[in-house]
């Protein structure tokens, strides 16, 4: 659905649910995931319905993902880093994971 207009900056490699994706330095995690064609970032805790980023400016909380073991990070506010590990969040979080 999303296509990069410009392929600028260094390549950054990160993992989303174990699968490597290529991003550009300066991307947010949300932008990188959307550009890589990730369909949804999480499913809601109560009804488990899929969500993807909405506002892309830190106020809607629909882009929540686990980044390097820390849960419910707003992907739109975190810049990509080489080697980062991102996991989508399905339903309620499991304590201890």
């Amino acid at each position, binding site marked *: 659905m999303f296509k990069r207009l410009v392929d600028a900056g260094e390549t950054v490699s990160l993992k989303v649910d174990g699968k490597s994706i290529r991003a550009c330095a300066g991307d947010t995690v949300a932008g990188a995931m959307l550009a890589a064609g990730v369909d949804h970032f999480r499913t809601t*805790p*109560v009804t488990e319905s899929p969500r993807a980023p909405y506002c892309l400016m830190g106020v809607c909380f629909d882009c929540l993902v686990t980044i390097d073991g*820390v849960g419910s990070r707003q992907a739109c506010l975190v810049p990509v880093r080489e080697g980062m590990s991102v996991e989508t969040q399905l339903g*309620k*979080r499991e*304590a*201890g994971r």
Partner: protein
Amino acid sequence: MAGSEYDVAVVGGGLVGAATSWGLAREGRRVALLDEGDRDVRASRGNFALVWVQSKGLGLAAYAGWTIRSSNAWGGFSDLLKQETGLDVCFQRPGGFHLALSEKELEARANILKRLHNQPGIVEYKTEMLDHSQVAKMLPDIGPEVVGASYCPLDGHVNSLRLFRALHTAINARGVTYLPSHRVENITKDGGEFRLHTGKGEIRAGKLALAAGNANMRLAPMVGLEAPMRPERGQIVVTERLRPFLNYPVVTLRQTDEGTVMIGDSKEESTDPSGLTIGVSSTEAERAVRQFPLLANVNVVRTWSAIRVMTQDGFPIYDESETHPGAFVLCCHSGVTLCANHALTVAPMIARGALDKSLVAPFSARRFHVQAAG
């Protein structure tokens, strides 16, 4: 009194007032429930939702029996609410724990329970002291620092906000007149009926039940009663929703039916319900992680504080006025645990016009004078 618009005016729309109003409505009484407004201190929005038995009654043995009575009636009470409103308040009584993080804590706990159960007139019920491995069978996620716990099979919990909503839904359906933003400024008795003077007019009723929490201290003397209160603040830490892992409530930590974990039990003298102190909430959080290490990387979504409705000695007050017959006062800090009693036992007493001394005499505020004379 024939001619009064209402049979009973209940002051205070929290759990105590709402439960009492519901019970009175079930007895066929016409009830007006007066409440303050959304910006006022409202203790019933800030509860930990425990329906708790263990360790209640040290210093007043009758409180243990009164509590157990309510705990035993709670299941039936929640069924009635569900029938009337369709709302399930998720009452569960799996038993509950008080965890100890050191031998000293465990010993202190055992001593308190021993003293409690040795009191003359105490009702007998089971509370066991368990060691780490026994606790781990029921709470597999406890951390290594948990030395042991006391466990009581009569302890439980409920969704207290949904309980509050269910009571208000039920009283509305039963035709109770709910009057928000009607702060009672003065109460007089005239021509056999009570007149409640509020900023929005006067409410008249044949009987009066004061269930206004800490504000009972101001209101009770207007009708020849007293309610010595000692409000106390508590702060709560609330986590994001988690997959169920905790099947039993712990006195300072529980997982709700919706998955959030509530962490609490601080006590402060402050009466500012909007104040939060990081030191208090971080201490609570740290203790919670020592009890359940898997909580360490779980996110906190909010913290809040609330004021406990605490009497001078921590035990309930139920009284009827001698100078103003027909006026009653109800104060307690366990508005959730005692909800069933208020709805099913105390409300009918008020409807009949007299407290049943065989059940509630020990909770009269006269007990404070006995202590002062000693």
